Structures are given as C-alpha cells and as structure tokens.
C-alpha cells in the first residue's frame, strides 16, 4: 500500500518535494506520514509468535496506521527538519529572561555515561550510591551559591519548582495554624507563571505596581502587607533586568508581617557567585538548571527547577531527598510529619543534574562568578552602544544581565516591536523577547548571556543600529514584510486558532482510492 506524497486537504499544495520555495539548503520537508508507510521500519526486530491467552481479550483490534521510515529515510527527514531551526549553536539567541547560553558538549557526554543513563530509579539504593552522591554534590553547590539551608531537587521545570516552593510555604503556614493567610503579593512586572502558581494553590493574587524606575517600592509592599498575606513572589533581578535595590528591606517587611519571601530565580545567571540570595532574606527560590546551568533547552524542555529553601521551610521539602545513613547514602522516599509529599514520580531530572554539575565543576566557583559578571557586562555593553538609537525606559541604573528597550523610538514609523523583531531574523539573529515585561510599552528585552564574544555583540549592535536608522528613515516595508529570508514568511496564527488542525489526517482522496 503506497500512500506517499498524497498531499493533504489543508496543505495548500506545498507538500511535495518539487514545490519547494526553500533554497537549496533549506528544503521544504513533507510530514513523515507523507514519506513513510506502515510497512517501512528502521528497526530490525525478530518476529515472534505469541498466544493471546494472557491478554485478557484486550488485544488491539483498531487500526494503528502508523507510518514508519527506514534508517536512511529517518536520518534525512530529521536532519532536513533540523535545518529549519535557529539555535544557539548557529547564531546569537538574545531572548530576554531565557538565558540562552552555550551548552557545553561535555555535559551531554557525561549524561550518557551508562552509570547515569542506564540506571533505574527503583533499583536498590545500594546499587546507585554514585547517583545519590551526585545529587548530594549538586545540592551542596546550589545551597552554597544561594546560602540556603536545604534544596528540593525534584521539580521538573521552573514553573514546577515555583509550585513546589509555594506548596512548601502553604504547608508551613498550615502547620503553624496560619491557614487564614490567603493573599499572595505579585509585582506587575512578574512573569505569568507567578500569578498562575499562586492562583492554582487557591491564593488571591494582589498586584504590586512598579515604580517609575522599574523596581518595586518597599513602601508599596508595606502598604499591601496584612495579617492575611501569605507571601510575596518577587523576581530578582527583576524582569526589567534590574536588581531590586530595596530587596533586603522588602524581605524584612515581609518577614515582620509573618509572611514568606518567594524569589523567582529565573534570572539567577546575573548574580551567581556574586550575590547569595540567602543573604537577601529569601525563603524559597527555584533555579532553572536549563537557564543558569546550561542544560539544553531542547526546543522547549525538558527543564529542571530545583528549589532552595530557608531553615524555616526546610522541614516542608517534598520527598525524595538524600541523607547520610549508616551504610552510605539513603534516599528518603516517604513523607514524615507535615511534609508535603511527592510532586513527581521517582527522583526528578537526573539527566539534568548530571549536566548541571558538570557545568559547575567546569566553571568552578570562580568561573561561575566570572560568567555572571560577563553576562552583566555584555548586557550593559549593548545598552551603552544602543542607548542613542533606541529608547531606554529605566536608564538611571546599570542594568543586570538584560538590556530593556521600549518602542518609543519607533513612534511615527509605522513599525511595531514585532515588525522590528522579525526584521532581525533576516539579519541572522533570533529576535529578542518582545512585549515582556508588560509594564513597558512594546518592550524589547535583550539577554546576550556571557557566551557571546565582543565581536558578535558588536555585529549585533551594528545591525540593531542600522535597523533603527532604517525604520526611522521610513523604510517601513522592510519591517512589515519581514522575515523574507527565513524558511517561512509570517504564519497565519488566526487561522491556526480559529479552526485548529492539531494532527495529520490521511487525505480523503487517498482513503477513497484505498477502498
């Protein structure tokens, strides 16, 4: 049965090899279902006879219709697909708040050692002492860098860590008879996960307005505090790329009101080895191993979001955790007392622990501090070079690891932040983060990270200056039609959302032909 290249009802005639509008090296690639069929396979496995006696009558009767590819076909399909992606390895990726730094390949090599990759989470603890030792060592680094009392390694990603941290706060307050605390303070500039997490746990979210300089006012926090406030969720450095200058006073006020200080550690890369969040008075903070500690973003995960905890919250850490026992390291897998239980099966993202620890050992304490300082240096360099051509909303302080611009420099040009960002694609750069933080109009948030050389930064700034000049010169078309050199022009997101097509269906004419 051959059903290759039949086209699709919604495919507007572009699914064949021939109708490529891509260049020689950027091919259009059909879907694997349009290339393969149910007979092809790239895996040789013996055919065995089985009896159905032990399947309880539940054997599959419905069709699978799952296309397969032989190995050379698969290799080509995925290599061709990969070429349609921008990546850190192929060009600068200045996405604010995402910390797109270099991903060392030693990390990958270490994660694939069979002693880490080929061990089962439920094999006897006596047979995985090296894995537990690694978790201990990673915990030591995280607690040392943050000056905190404990760390829960298991969360699967930043948002998951945030959820866990807030669950620990809730558990601690319930244990202390403080369940009436139902309000969580969240600055307006916060990332959307913060209010989402607080609301998920049943808290009422009370926004704290930003000051004109982009930071949080300790007085505004004090005014919002009451005996009903459970916690503040504060990002520091904040989403505008600024270090909160009053963070210690805010922490003191929050603690004086009997509430906890949850710090969103998304921007820890700016301060690792230079400032310890524990010294600022935080009670819980998640650390995105996939940002700060270079585990690959992988096109959207997997991440890892360990949470460091203060002395007060340490008893409310989830299981499992590692502790020293008589016969080596033990894994505590069951909740005792009022601990909050388990937030994921097994022990968290071991593959990410290996990569992050490899990264830490490579840098050492000195290298991590140098990396943070270089990240801050690079952001300030971009800000200094572009300040004359762009508009800087909060220009009074040095920035931390991100440079933030607003869109007032585009006023009257007919070019939007989105258009400007798309034009950057044609120049070979990934766009910056746009329209975030929400407190800045038409925000452009640029995070170069420490991985970019001065040469790359200069080229980026040259391109940015040239684009700004061109926008101001009235060359609107270049921006509104961008990108023109990417594998695709702008995509119709309205169409995608109004009548969602979320999977491939065999074309109707092919089904008829098969009958």
């Amino acid at each position, binding site marked *: 049965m051959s059903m290759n290249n039949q086209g699709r009802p919604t495919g507007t005639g572009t699914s064949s090899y021939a109708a490529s509008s891509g260049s020689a090296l950027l091919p259009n690639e059909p879907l694997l*279902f349009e290339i393969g*069929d*149910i007979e092809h*396979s790239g*895996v040789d*496995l013996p055919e065995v006879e089985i009896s159905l006696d*032990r*399947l*309880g009558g*539940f054997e*599959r009767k*419905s069709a699978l219709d*799952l296309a*397969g590819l032989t190995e050379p076909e*698969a290799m080509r399909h995925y290599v061709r697909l*990969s070429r349609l992606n*921008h990546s850190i390895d192929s060009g600068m990726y200045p996405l604010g708040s995402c910390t797109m730094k270099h*991903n060392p390949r*030693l990390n990958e090599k270490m994660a694939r*050692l069979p002693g*880490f990759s*080929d*061990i*089962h989470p*439920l094999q006897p603890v006596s047979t995985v*002492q090296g894995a537990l030792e690694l978790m201990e060592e990673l915990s030591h680094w995280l607690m040392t860098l943050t000056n905190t009392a404990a760390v829960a390694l298991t969360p699967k*990603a930043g*948002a*998951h860590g945030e959820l866990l941290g807030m669950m620990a706060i*809730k558990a601690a307050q319930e244990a202390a008879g403080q369940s009436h605390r139902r309000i969580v303070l969240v600055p307006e500039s916060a990332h*959307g*996960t913060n209010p989402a997490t607080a*609301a*998920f746990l049943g808290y009422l*979210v009370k926004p704290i307005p930003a000051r004109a300089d982009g930071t949080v006012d300790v007085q505004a926090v004090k005014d919002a505090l009451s005996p009903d406030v459970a916690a503040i969720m504060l990002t520091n450095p904040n989403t505008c790329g*600024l270090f*909160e200058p009053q963070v210690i006073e805010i922490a003191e006020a929050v603690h004086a009101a009997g509430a906890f200080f949850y710090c969103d550690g998304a921007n820890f890369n700016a301060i690792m080895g230079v*400032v310890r969040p524990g*010294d600022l008075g935080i009670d819980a903070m998640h650390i995105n191993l996939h940002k700060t500690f270079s585990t690959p973003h992988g*096109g*959207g995960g997997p991440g890892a979001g360990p949470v460091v905890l203060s002395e007060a919250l340490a008893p409310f850490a*989830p299981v499992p955790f590692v502790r020293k026992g008589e016969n080596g390291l033990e894994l505590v897998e*069951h909740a005792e007392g009022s601990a909050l*239980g388990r*937030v*994921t*099966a*097994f022990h968290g993202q071991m593959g990410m622990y290996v990569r992050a620890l*490899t990264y830490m050992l490579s840098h050492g304490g000195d290298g991590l501090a140098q*990396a943070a300082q270089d990240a801050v240096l690079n952001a300030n360099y971009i800000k200094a070079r572009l300040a004359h051509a762009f508009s800087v909303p909060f220009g009074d302080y*040095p920035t*931390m690891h991100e440079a933030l611009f607003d869109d007032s420099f585009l006023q009257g040009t007919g070019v939007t932040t989105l258009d400007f960002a798309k034009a950057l694609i044609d120049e070979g750069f990934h766009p910056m983060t746009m329209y975030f933080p929400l407190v800045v109009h038409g925000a452009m948030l640029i995070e170069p990270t420490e991985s970019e050389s001065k040469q790359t930064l200069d080229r980026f700034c040259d391109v940015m200056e040239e684009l700004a000049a061109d926008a101001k010169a009235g060359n609107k078309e270049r921006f509104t039609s961008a990108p023109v050199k990417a*594998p695709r*022009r702008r*995509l*119709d997101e309205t169409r*995608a959302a109004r009548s969602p*097509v*979320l999977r*491939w269906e065999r074309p109707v004419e092919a089904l008829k032909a098969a009958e």
Partner: protein
Amino acid sequence: MRYLPHSEAERAEMLGIIGAVDIDALFSAVPSRALKSFDLGLPAHSPEFMVEAHMKALAAKNHAGADGPFFVGAGAYRHHVPATVDHLIQRSEFLTAYTPYQPEISQGTLQMLFEFQTQVAKITGMDVANASLYDGSTGTAEAVLMARRLTKRNKIVLSGGLHPHYRDVVKAYLKDDADLECLSASPEGQGDILDHIDEQTAAIVVQTPDFYGHLRNIKTAADAAHAKGALLIVVITEVVSLGLLEAPGALGADIVVAEGQSIGNALNFGGPYLGLMATRKEFIRQMPGRLCGETVDTEGQRGFVLTLSTREQHIRREKATSNICTNSGLCALAFSIHMALLGEAGFKRLARLNHANACKLADALAGVQGVEVLNKSFFNEMTIRTRQPAAELVERLAARGILAGVPVSRLEPDDASIANLIVLAATELTTDGDIATLCAALAEELQ
C-alpha cells in the same frame, strides 16, 4: 575559562565604552553588605579531563542496567534506543533551540511536534494530543484537574492499581481534598472502582496495564463512568503495550495519560521523562500544555505554529489552565524519531517481543519453589508473592548482580499485606539466560 570568550583587555575596553570604572560599578544596586561578601569555598574551574574523571568515578559507583540481569520496571522500562535517535537529538538545531515562539525560524521543532501529536493520537486512539507534559505522574494530576474543569464536578476516584507515585503526586496537587478517593492497593488485579462512581464524580482514574501488571477492563470502566456523567482517565506507564493492546480511545477513554519514556528515552534514574496526554476533540480547550497546529504563511505555504496559547500561563496568568510552562521537547523528539523508525510494523513487533519474553519470565517464575505469580493477564510486567519479605530478598539478589524487580513495599511501606510482593518486568532486552539466572538465584535464596 574555556566557555567565556572575553580577554581581560576586551573586558576593560567594554567597561570603558559603558563608562563604568570597574565591574562592581555595574552591581551598584546590590546592597554592599550582600555583594561578594563571602568566600564560597567551592573548587576552582577545572579542565575537561578532570571533570570527566570526577563524573566517571561517580558513574562507576552505580550498577548499570547492562551490568547484569535486569527486571526492574514499575513505571520506567529498559528498552533499546536506536543509535539514530541519540545522534539526531544531539543535532545542534534541535538540542540548543528554545521553545518555538518564532515560528518562521522554528519549523523543525514545530513540524516534529505536529508529527509527535499525530503519533500519540494514533497509538492512544484519541482525537488529539498535546505537545507533551513533564512526565506521566504530573500528567495524571493535570488530567484530574482537567476533568474537574470539564465536568464542573469535584470527586475523583483513583484505582488501587494506579502507580503509587502517581497517586502520591495527585494527592500533593489536590492537597487536603476531601473529594479525592484513593482505593487501596489491588495487587491481585481486584477492584471495586465501578461501585465508587456517583453523580458527583468528575473522573475515575484507571491504569492499564496496572502497577501490578494486570490488564484492566477499560470498556466496562468507560461505560460505568459515562452512565453517571463522569469521565474516564486512562493511565499507561508502559507505552509499548499499545503495540499489542487495544487503544483506550477505542474503548471509550476520555483522557489518556501515558509515560512515554519507553520509546526513545533512556532510564536516566527517573528523568527527564515524557508525559503524553491525549483527549477528545471537544475537550481541547481544557487540555493543559502546549499545542502545535497547522496553518499557512503569507505566501500560502504550509507551516506550523504553537496555537491556542491563550490557555497558558503567560497570557492568562492567574486564569491559566495550569502553571505549566515547559513541555518535554527533546524527549518528545526522541520519542517521535524512535516511533518513526519503528513504524506500525516495528511497534507491533516490539510489543509482541516484550510480551513473549514476559510470558517466558512468568512461566519460569511459576516453576520456582516459594514463588507465586499473581497475574492471569499481563503485558510485560507481573507481580510475584514470595515466602520472604521482598525488600531484603531483592537486596540479596542485587548483591549477586541481579536486579530482580521492585519490592512493592518500597512504594507502599505502610501496607504489611504486600511486604512479600515483587513487581518484575521483561522487555526485548531480556534474554533466556537472564531469566534462568534469576530463577536459579531465587530458588537458592528461598530455600
């Protein structure tokens, strides 16, 4: 430091252009008592070969799956991953890309996700699947919340055959929730979940093959749930089973959650793994997680975008369907490549091979004095009762180089009635020699 491009001269030049006297001037907003006020006491930076030696020494202290007979399953399975899979997921363009928010330069990731969603929908027999969640356990908790949103009811009943970790995660997500009923462990495949469905029930959660390996009757569960207006959530921890067993979608499941690790992903001591979630078309808007959809660009070319993102936290903030931000992109890619390599023919062969080896294992175990196999039905996993406490027995076998499975007491420490139970799995990697070695050792230990 090999990862940092600047020379000291370049740093000085850049500070000059910024107009800062030194690097500390850029940290002027930091309260002085908190800036570099400490000695970390951490080791200094290290050459690659020294880091490698350190990590290898740690890895060497672990007993890897390939080091001896291996029968550990219980929610994570040791399967062969083709070399092609691991090579392709290390392509720079997949490995070091971010979430595909700029679709014009992310079609590789997006098309892959569209293919992945299609594969997941097909194997589960459901209309649509999302672009993956963290793992099966958190996916189960998300499915429970989704069912509550859909039905506007609260009661949730978890089958006694649900993986205990999954149950514990649901408990943590629904902390102190009186509407959560967790039925007691059912190692014999027994269960009375159908008696617990009433007009307040949002969903029942049934795993098949269940934690103890038994195959559950999904059709009966679906009919009973639907009769009361409740939903059926089917959980699958061994996704290879779908190559041989009927798709839950064909039996009436409303939401299917699966752990996708078995396809394309190594054991990795428990993570990163891959949550699969699929549902009916009409439930899409209440499904958490990212979704990739097909559309066209301004020139009419087919392309893909993340869509229906208004359900997500970065837009809905406190009204989002979930606080989830990340999917498990690279694990989804590994799954999708492995599944494409298998194809229908390979996937079915793989499933049959797993079942055939499990049958051999069950027959051999049944022949060991002092061992009782509890399963009448199974896919590739089963539970045995031995005449000794399981935890110590498994430990003694490990000392002999045999990883003999999971003592149920490790996950259910408070239930004395299951202290002698072991869950064992066989896969395509299990050899006749492994089975013979295990059974001989068991016979000796149980004498």
